[in-house]
């Protein structure tokens, strides 16, 4: 019965999308699309100094929205921590990881860390930025956690780093209130030479703050999810 209801519902949805929405979204001549994006493309280099227009939208034009996004990520990490910390924990007997897997993951970790830092630092020049770079660094932590149970996980340290990164994002925004423009998250710094690493004012700084915050947050979340696999941390020590 559930499957029948599901099939009827999704057929209705697909029929609606293909008949009505397709006519709006797929235009006959797609070069006639007009939106606020054209204005942003025309002015973004002059206004923000960043080569990547998507980055200038995410960090400056919609910077307040990004602050909210970081808050949503923080709330989900907080929810995971609250859900996974308390209560009884699993007592699974897991097999020991193979030597090759362990050594390989420990060799891979510094390179993933470096690559994540590269992605974060070039957010205003190439595709990437704080969120993908932070996820890459957290993936490095994740691989090490997957393959070794001896990894000492200090999440109070991660929490302090995360708090400082979030605070520096807000402080960078508030400094904009004391500049002549008098608005939150205004690009008050010197824009520098276009298309170099040290350019585009506060965009690399904000992306660095976001990258540090996302990487420490996700590493903490992954570590909290793994508490259940190896029992509570206090029982391990």
């Amino acid at each position, binding site marked *: 019965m559930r499957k029948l209801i599901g099939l009827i519902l999704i057929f209705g949805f*697909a029929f609606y999308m293909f008949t009505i929405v397709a006519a709006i979204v797929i235009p006959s001549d*797609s070069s006639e699309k007009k939106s606020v*994006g054209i204005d942003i493309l025309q002015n973004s280099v002059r206004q923000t100094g960043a*080569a990547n227009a998507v980055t200038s939208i995410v960090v400056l034009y919609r910077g307040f929205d990004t602050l909210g996004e970081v808050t949503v990520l923080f*709330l989900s990490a907080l929810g*995971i921590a609250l*859900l996974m910390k308390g*209560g009884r924990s699993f007592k699974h007997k897991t097999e020991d990881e193979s030597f090759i897997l362990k050594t390989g993951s420990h060799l891979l970790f510094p390179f993933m860390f470096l690559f994540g830092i590269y992605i974060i630092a070039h957010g205003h020049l190439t595709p990437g930025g704080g969120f993908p770079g932070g996820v890459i660094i957290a993936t490095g932590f994740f691989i090490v956690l997957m393959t070794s149970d001896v990894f000492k996980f200090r999440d109070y340290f991660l929490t302090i780093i995360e708090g400082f990164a979030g605070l520096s994002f807000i402080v960078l925004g508030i400094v904009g209130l004391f500049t002549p423009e008098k608005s939150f998250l205004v690009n008050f710094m010197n824009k520098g030479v276009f298309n170099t690493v040290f350019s585009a004012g506060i965009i690399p700084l904000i992306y660095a703050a976001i990258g540090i915050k996302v990487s420490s947050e996700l590493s903490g979340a992954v570590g909290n999810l793994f508490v259940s696999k190896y029992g509570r941390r206090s029982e391990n020590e």
Partner: protein
Amino acid sequence: MNNIINIETLIFTASIGLVVIGIYLVIAEKNLIKIIIGLNLADSGVNIFIVFSGYIKNKTAPIFSKGSLGFENMVDPLPQALVLTAIVIGFGVTALSLAIAIRLYKHYGTLDISKIRGLKW
């Protein structure tokens, strides 16, 4: 025939197909992990749909590096920036729902939602 099957129709069909598969999994499946996979698929479909809404044929990525073709030859950057937000929030939703699934498994010893008290429908 070439006018009907073009790249726009293909991407549109793929995104709607992903959303449809995801919604079907959420409605019909009984395993919590499969429901979360369905949520993820629907999320990816919506993301592809939003990026596609800013797509313009024969235009490049909105990056003004050396050798770029100028702003007349770039796709709309706004949907891509919105999708960056949507991906991060989708990740948060997935991680939180997996944590809830782990807690439910700890409490009830099963992931079948028809066997979990209070979740029947």
